[in-house]
């Protein structure tokens, strides 16, 4: 399985309109100048999958994720993560869309293929496919050495989670 594309609306620096960010299988390099919006792509993925807190998304609270600029602002931030399913996810379809919308009050709505789910249900669903709460597969900017900074007990819990 892999992420085919993201669809974002009002998410961080991606403006008000609906924007498609194509990804796809293999080794995808994301390049561009400082401040362009590269890390915001990783934030969109972590956000939609429920794998991050406001803090790790560099937001004071979730409403800070909503696109805003002098004079204009979105009403919500919305992200869809489109997966190609090749048997990794325990569902019939060969496509999986996980989405999350957060409004100005910081309330979130999670969906799996359009169906509203609770955050913890999403988390259980993902854990069965190698997408754990510890999110060892997501290395945010400046954070690669977090595995070294962990306490021994935290490290044991990481191994326990994947065991």
């Amino acid at each position: 399985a892999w992420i085919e594309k993201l669809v974002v609306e009002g998410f961080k620096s991606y403006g008000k309109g609906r924007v498609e960010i194509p990804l796809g299988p293999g080794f995808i390099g994301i390049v561009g100048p400082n401040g362009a919006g590269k890390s915001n792509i990783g934030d969109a993925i972590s956000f939609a999958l429920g794998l991050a807190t406001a803090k790790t998304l560099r937001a004071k609270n979730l409403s800070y994720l909503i696109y805003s600029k002098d004079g204009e602002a979105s009403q919500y931030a919305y992200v869809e993560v489109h997966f190609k399913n090749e048997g990794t996810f325990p569902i019939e379809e060969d496509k999986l869309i996980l989405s999350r919308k957060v409004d100005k009050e910081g309330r979130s709505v999670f969906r799996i293929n359009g169906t509203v789910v609770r955050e913890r249900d999403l988390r259980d669903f993902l854990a069965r496919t190698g997408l754990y709460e510890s999110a060892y597969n997501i290395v945010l900017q400046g954070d690669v050495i977090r595995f070294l900074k962990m306490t021994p007990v935290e490290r044991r819990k990481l191994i326990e989670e994947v065991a």
Partner: protein
Amino acid sequence: KLSAFNTAFDSINEGLKRVFAELSPGGRAYMEIENPQDPFSGGINLVVKPKGKEVQYIDAISGGEKTLVALALIFAIQDYRPSPFYYFDEVDAHLDEVNARRIGELIRKRSEKAQFIVVTLREVLASYADRLIGVSIRSGVSRVFPVKNFFAEASSG
């Protein structure tokens, strides 16, 4: 539960040793269970021995060496319990050119089994990618577009 843990631990530990030796020839890295009799009563230590040196207090090793240990651990976990995708944001920030190439090689090989989405500011790592996605911003709004070669787009700030 204990046996599941021990199986995972041993397998990931072997992976860590193997991958780190590949990345840092002559160096060694491995994990140690604090209380082998009762793993859940303690934690897991990370032990590193860079080439030519004895076991080092993990904080003392260099920034680049720390990055290699961390990536080796991620790849070792991937070999045991793969994730469908990996997202790496500027993991090459503290790597010299030789190590950035080794990581680029390793990601390329492993991208046959998993998707790797890798943000980078350096041409070295970008040169190993199958495809490049450019990101730019104008009037406070980001956009993305396909990129053929790194230098056209990557630092036209």
